[in-house]
Each structure stands twice: as C-alpha cells, then as structure tokens.
C-alpha cells in the first residue's frame, strides 16, 4: 500500500506523503492542545465556562435587553427614563442614535455635515488605494495631493458655492483622520531622512543635528509639545501673524512622531548586514541609488512590525489634542455625554468610540501582516 503513495528511488528509503493521522487532524489537535491531561482538561472546562458566561451576559446586555430608541417630548427633549430603568440590564443605544452626528462631525454646521462625511470616505479610499501595491508608483503622490486638496476645499469651503467653515468648528472623526494621516504621511519620510542623517559618517554636522533633534523631541511629552505649539509659539510670532491652531498641533505631531519613527528606521538600517552596502558601493552605485534601491527596501521591511506599532500608537495619541482645545473623536464623545439627559450612558458612547478606534488599528495591523508576508515571500533565505 505504501508503494502507491510513495516515491521510491532505487536504493533509497521511500518518502511517505503525510504523517499518520493520529498526530494530525482536528481531533488530534484538540487532544494535544486542550485535553492532554486531567489538569489541562480542568483548565479548559473552567475557562470555557467563564468565557461562555461573559459572552452570554454581554449579548443579553447589548442586544436582548437593549433599548434602541426613546420617546421625545414636544420640545425635542428625550425622555430617558426607560434607559435609566434598564441600567445594568440593557444597553441604551438610543444615545448613539441621538448623538452619532455630533460625535462623528463635532460642531460642524449641521446642515453641512455631508461635507466631512465625504471627507471621511475620501480618507478611507485614500488608504485603500495606498495599500494596493500596484499603485506604488509616482502617480500615488499625485493622487494624494489631489485627494487632500479636495478634502481641504470640502472642509473649509468658501469656494464653489460652499459656505466657509473655520477650523474652530471642525471636530470628531475628520479631525482625528486629518491629524493622523498628515502626521504620519509627513513624519515617515522625515524620519527616514533623520535616521539616515544620524548614521552619516561623512557629514558630522548633519549627524549631530539629527541626534540633537531625536533626543530633544523624544525627551519631551507630546502634551508639552502640543502646549508649546498652541500657547508659546504664538508669543514668538510677530504681531498679526497667525498660524492656525490645527496647523500648529499638526506640526507638533509630525515632529514628535518623526523622532520616534526615526529610531525605528535606524534599527532597521543597523540590522542590515554591512555587506549589502559594500556590494552596492563596489558596483559603483551612488549614495542615493544605494540607499533607495538596496538599503531602504530591506531595512524598512525588517521594521514593519515596530513601524506599525508606532503608527497605531500615534493614531490614538492624536486624541491628546483635546488638551489644546481641539475636538477630536474622543473629545466629542465627552461632549456628547455632557448633555444632561444622557449623562449616565458613557459605557455605550465609549464602546462605540472603541469600535471605531479598533477598526482603524486592526486594519493597520492586519494589512501590515499581509504586507510582511508578501514581501517576505521574495526574501526567503
């Protein structure tokens, strides 16, 4: 029987096609991983019971006993007594239905909120396009510039018959996406330059400057940097010159993120064997050719996990701009909860915010793992 499935060369032991079924398959997997001994069986059963309890009570709270809407009186005030009665038993999703536009778009004029909505969709489209490797060519830069211009026009308005909306009235998800997208899109190239500068052997002045930049910026909390940008920076500007608050916070985030990313990138540069640079040198490639074609593609691939780690961290850190009076997504959740009838339903609002943040962060992490795998296929050693 083994002869049919085996490939036998004369004089060699025949190879069999698969290991015996007692060590493969789902039943074997369960036995080795969950029920290998009486202790592990006991732990499996106990944990299984606990998980089941939590899941069941969450479903009961979030779905079965949830209150989806509440009646409104003649003045438009909600009557939340049903929700208050159900506290601890069922979720009050009515608050989301009542407040979602405030949370997502902040104080942007209510009638104009289709504009930030389109912007959010544009941002998402931009991410998807950038994630597809077929678009990794110079035209992508043009796509970005075009998309960001459209977003600017939509948000500010003032042309094409759109009402002008100053950025003080912006808020919610668009603010978070603007700060995160611009922040990382500018910080990443800057960080690569800083990392390269920090390793330069021929330009000691540049190296010193890069070390100084990284150490200074990294040594300061982001909150302090945001404060400096919004409070101290205007003091140094001449009378009448007014750089707007959003831009100032944006620059602070870019500078801060770049300092962190630069160290991540430097780690990748250091991990690369010296022979790679030497081989490129020996072939006569110039510094920028060597860096762009040989060094960076390999170094950046090596640091995808810590790079994405930092990206995710900064996506969430954008919520710190609330300290300088900007209304990002998280801050808008707080604002929504300050409305007296809804004050006691923070769990529901924060759950919704968590779902939004998780969706973005999970997408980043999932994409990075796919990218790593795809690039790794070509890199087997």
């Amino acid at each position, binding site marked *: 029987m083994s002869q049919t499935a085996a490939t036998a060369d004369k004089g060699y032991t025949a190879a069999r096609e698969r290991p015996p079924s007692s060590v493969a398959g789902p039943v074997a997997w369960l036995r080795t991983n969950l029920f290998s001994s009486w202790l592990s069986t006991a732990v499996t059963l106990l944990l299984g019971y606990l998980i089941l309890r939590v899941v069941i009570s969450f479903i009961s709270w979030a779905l079965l006993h949830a209150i989806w809407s509440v009646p409104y009186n003649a003045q438009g005030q909600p009557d939340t007594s049903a929700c208050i009665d159900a506290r601890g038993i069922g979720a009050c999703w009515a608050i989301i239905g009542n407040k979602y536009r405030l949370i997502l778009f902040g104080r942007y004029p209510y009638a104009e909120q289709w504009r930030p909505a389109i912007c959010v969709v544009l941002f998402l489209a931009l991410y998807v396009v950038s994630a597809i490797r077929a678009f990794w060519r110079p035209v992508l830069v043009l796509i970005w510039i075009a998309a960001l211009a459209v977003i600017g026009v939509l948000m500010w308005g003032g042309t094409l018959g759109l009402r002008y909306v100053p950025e003080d009235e912006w808020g919610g998800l668009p603010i978070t996406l603007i700060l995160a997208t611009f922040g990382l899109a500018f910080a990443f190239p800057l960080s690569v330059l800083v990392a390269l500068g920090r390793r330069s052997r021929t330009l000691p002045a540049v190296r010193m400057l890069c070390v100084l930049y990284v150490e200074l910026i990294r040594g300061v909390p982001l909150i302090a940097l945001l404060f400096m940008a919004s409070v101290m920076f205007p003091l140094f500007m001449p009378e009448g010159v007014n750089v707007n608050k959003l831009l100032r916070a944006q620059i602070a985030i870019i500078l801060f993120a770049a300092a962190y990313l630069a160290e991540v990138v430097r780690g990748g540069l250091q991990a690369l064997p010296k022979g*790679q640079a030497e081989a490129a040198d020996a072939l006569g490639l110039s510094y920028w050719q060597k860096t762009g074609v040989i060094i960076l593609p390999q170094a950046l691939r090596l640091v995808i996990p810590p790079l994405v780690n930092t990206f995710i961290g900064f996506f969430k850190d954008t919520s710190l701009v609330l300290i300088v009076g900007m209304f990002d997504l998280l801050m808008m959740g707080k604002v929504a909860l300050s409305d007296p009838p809804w004050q006691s339903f923070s769990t529901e609002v924060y759950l919704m915010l968590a779902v939004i943040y998780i969706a973005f962060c999970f997408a980043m992490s999932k994409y990075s793992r796919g990218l790593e795998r795809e690039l790794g296929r070509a890199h087997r050693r």
Partner: protein
Amino acid sequence: MSQTSVTEHIIPHMVDTNKPPVIILDKVNKWFGPLHVLRDVSMTVAEKERVVVCGPSGSGKSTMIRCINRLESHQEGRIIVDRTELTDDLRSLDTIRSEVGMVFQSFNLFPHLTILENCTLAPIWVRKMPKAAAEDVAMSFLTRVKIPEQAKKYPGQLSGGQQQRVAIARALCMRPKIMLFDEPTSALDPEMIKEVLDVMIELADSGMTMVCVTHEMGFARQVADRVVFMDRGEIVESGRPEQMFGEPRTDRLKLFLSQILRGH
C-alpha cells in the same frame, strides 16, 4: 573552448610588460585605530595579469584588496587604479568602482531582488543602460556562469556555489577592466568550491586582470602569474607560483605553507 575544468592545464601568461600597470600600490599604510594593518605595501598589477594573494588570517590581504576599490581608505601612500589616483573625490571613486568588479566571501547578493535584477541593477542605474539591453547582457553572463535557468529566482533559493557564481556574473555585467576576489570560496561547502573555481579559471582564460585573495593553492598554481604572500600587514615574498610553493625563501612562507598543506 578550452577544457578548463577537468584537466589542470596551466593557463598561458598574457602579460604585456611594455604596457603601464593598471594597479599601482605605492608604500600604502593603513591603521585600524592603533592597529597597523598595512605596512608599506607596494605592488603593481599589469594588464591581464592574474595575481593571487595569500597569507594567514589577519595578515591584511583582505584589507589590501578592499583598498583597491576604496571600500577601505588608506592613510598613507598612493593607490592608482587605471591611471586614476584614489582620493576622497567622489566622482573619480564612482568611476573606478564601476571599472573594478568585486566578489565577496559572503556573496552579498541583494536578497530582495531576483537573480536577473541583481545583475541588471548596476548597468541600469550606473551605466544608464536600457532595461532590455541590460537583461540581454545579464543573461549572457548568467549563461557563462552556467545558471541562466535560475534568473527569475531569488538569491535565498540558490545554493552557496550558485550564489557565488551569480555574484561573479553580477560583477561582470558592469564589464569591468579588473576583477577583485576576496576569498570567494571560503564560505562554501567543499562540494561547491569547484564550480566557482571553474568559473574563475574560465575568466582567467579570457584574459581578465584579476587580483584574488584565496587559499586554493591548486587554483593559484593553475592560474596565477604571480603569488603574493602577506603576513602581519606586509608583503613578505612574491614570485611565480611554482617558485613560491616549490622553494620558498623566507621562513614565514615556509611556516604558512606547512600549515595550510597539513590541512590538505
């Protein structure tokens, strides 16, 4: 074609002594920190000459060969390659590097590029060759090192001997005037050394100027016009291979030969 691999025929000398040398090292000194690694190293290499450099580890032979295309910079003395003196001037450096091919002990292929891309990279970026032409050149050299069928693979999928042959083809694609080999077979499993040496012997046969750091004495005997023995950063002895291996003059060379021959 000549029979290169099986019979150990001695490749005839092609050196024209009337022509000026293509590599001149004139009292070259180099230090790594307090360590004096090259001490008054002087030698010349003529066009089409094949020089084998040998010596114990730490003798400075790799450092010397790396100075010739300035992967290391020397601190005293002069190095003149193809009538250009090596200085800190970047433009002349890029010119020299594109004229001098180098093969490393650890291959140093670019793992994120295919074999073909490894070979076409420098011709396209440095020589500004059109992609199709560069690929033709690359395929012809890959055929010469007997692995054209691997062109679409990545370096990690090849054996050590194949990788080193690709590295030789990659260097040849730049059509260098001089080839430097820095212990090209030292990182290879024994059964793969021969396939790399065969390629190098064929290259020698074609009249390439070669400077080769190696411990392969059979190769030196068959190919070298001249063997240079280095020890502790200086050139101790140099001469024709049969004279160097047959009747060494210095005790240091005698000791070295007895040490490496014991291993064979």
